[in-house]
């Protein structure tokens, strides 16, 4: 019953609506039945294909990227710490931050004049200022970096939990058998 409400009804209504000319901005002839017209319009629209391509690239780059960064963070967090909770909090925070907040914050980070990223780059000696959000490729990079930052935290949490579950005895046994640190990993 709950699944029907949360999943089936919205998806069903969405598919139903896709055959009508509905506009969020209001207008006189609301809700006329237009058959496959919406689908045809979308397939003809260059922006749609562009967006699809971007989505594909973002998925290909950020999923492995987040996995790698997450693994690194998880390994770092797995080191013996005096107090465990600051580490766990730091791992959890990026994922807990609402996505829209994250977007707004990083938009300011990447702002050409007032952003932290350019400030750090300038201090590191970069001469030519990068206009992050004004060049398609740089903007793409900025988006990937933000997504990786956010999702790597989630990955790190899961991997961290997994790492914590490996009993110490396994490591000790491997060490006794003469395995190097890398082989133990």
């Amino acid at each position: 019953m709950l699944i029907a409400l949360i999943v089936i009804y919205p998806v069903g209504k969405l598919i139903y609506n896709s055959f009508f000319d509905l506009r969020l901005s209001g207008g006189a002839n609301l809700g006329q039945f237009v058959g496959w017209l919406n689908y045809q319009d979308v397939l003809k629209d260059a922006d749609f294909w562009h967006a699809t391509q971007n989505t594909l690239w973002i998925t290909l780059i950020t999923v492995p990227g987040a996995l790698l960064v997450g693994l690194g963070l998880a390994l770092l967090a797995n080191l013996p710490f005096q107090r465990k909770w600051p580490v766990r909090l730091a791992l959890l925070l990026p994922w807990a931050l609402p996505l829209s907040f994250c977007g707004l914050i990083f938009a300011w980070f990447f702002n050409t004049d007032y952003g932290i990223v350019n400030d750090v780059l300038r201090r590191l000696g970069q001469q030519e200022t990068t206009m992050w959000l004004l060049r398609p490729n740089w903007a793409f990079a900025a988006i990937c970096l933000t997504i990786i930052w956010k999702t790597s935290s989630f990955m790190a949490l899961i991997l961290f939990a997994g790492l914590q579950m490996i009993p110490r005895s396994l490591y000790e046994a491997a060490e006794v058998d003469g395995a190097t640190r890398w082989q133990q990993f």
Partner: protein
Amino acid sequence: MKRRTLTQWLSAAVVVAGLSGQAALADTKIRVFSGGQNQRPDLMRKLFDAYQAQNPGTTIEIETGGATSELQRQYLSTVLNAKDTAIDIYMIDIVNPSQYFNAGWLEPLDSYVGGAAALKPYLPVYSQANLVNGKVAALPAFADAMFMYYRKDLLEKHGVKEPKTWDELTAAAKKITEAEKNPSLQGLSIQGAPIEGAVCTFLLPYWSQGKQFNDANGKLTLDKEAATKGLDMWLKMVDAGVLKKNIAEVTTPVTVNEFKAGQVVFAINWGFAWDVFKDAADSQVKGKVGVMPLPAVAGGKSATCVGGWQWAVSAFSKNKPAAAQLVKYMSTPEASKFLAREGSLLPVFQSVYTDADVLKQAPWFKDAANVIIAGQARPISSQYGQVSDVVRTNTNAALARTKTPTEAVNDIEGRLNRVMR
């Protein structure tokens, strides 16, 4: 036993409902969406407090949001599309009455204000914008237009006269920035971000060449060559170092803040900014600011974009008569004078422009009425949201150099030919 408790609950509920019904008769609550910070909700609050004092039993709550006009439009679109009764009156930009009326989002005010004749006392551009299909869609709150703010002190220091054309402005800006040798001093600041104001950035040089964007019926009459020349003009200024390279990131608040901090020589902005430069606690330019009409292109006339905000009653309000009363109060000459005096919000009544108190705060208001009367309105369309989206994103793309001006103008024509027919 069960039936008795049920009847007990029901009778208790009826009593409570009756009591609260009585309370509601005495106490009206009106919820207002008052725009963003630039629409001075603090001053509106003072006017509301005065209204509350005159009308005991009425409480007015303000809601604000959306730093720029199109963000507010997005928010209101969501609320009004859902037919939410949460908002009774809301403030909309001058470009919105037609769209909101056609979408059925506002309540025509004819029965509360005595018909279309109620719009006569206002400046003509506002009478026109608020009259949709012969009905009163909204009442004006305050007027606005784009002006050229400049650093009087810097112009005097380097012996530069007030520029009357864009070429003169480019030369003046270059002379001053080169002489000042301050790397963070910008020659000119305009709005290049894809906000509502970018529609004006596109239209200013276009109108200045004497071209119209649409005819009286709303059909697109785009002169592509003139439009491309307009966008090229801004890009030439970027190349000359007068506009900063990332001008495509600049929004209205950014221009205001940078000019206020003393980092800009010339700035295009709206009338409300005068009060900010004059009175803000962190203003570095107090007493150093001049205001003049916008320059013209060579051989053209000065053109400005008219803005201004209106009060509308939501079609889904549960309290329309009370809401309409409040709207009427907010659109009186007295309210207009208060806003002009306290916040340099341009009046919608011609007479208030020459009021002595008002002139003391903003001496340049004397000539401002003429600027607004000669100003041009952006296309009036029931699909204005789409029109705005196409023009501002293409202007932004041209300024960010991700599209050439020709590509941007072609895209505008292609997309708007279907919408503006």
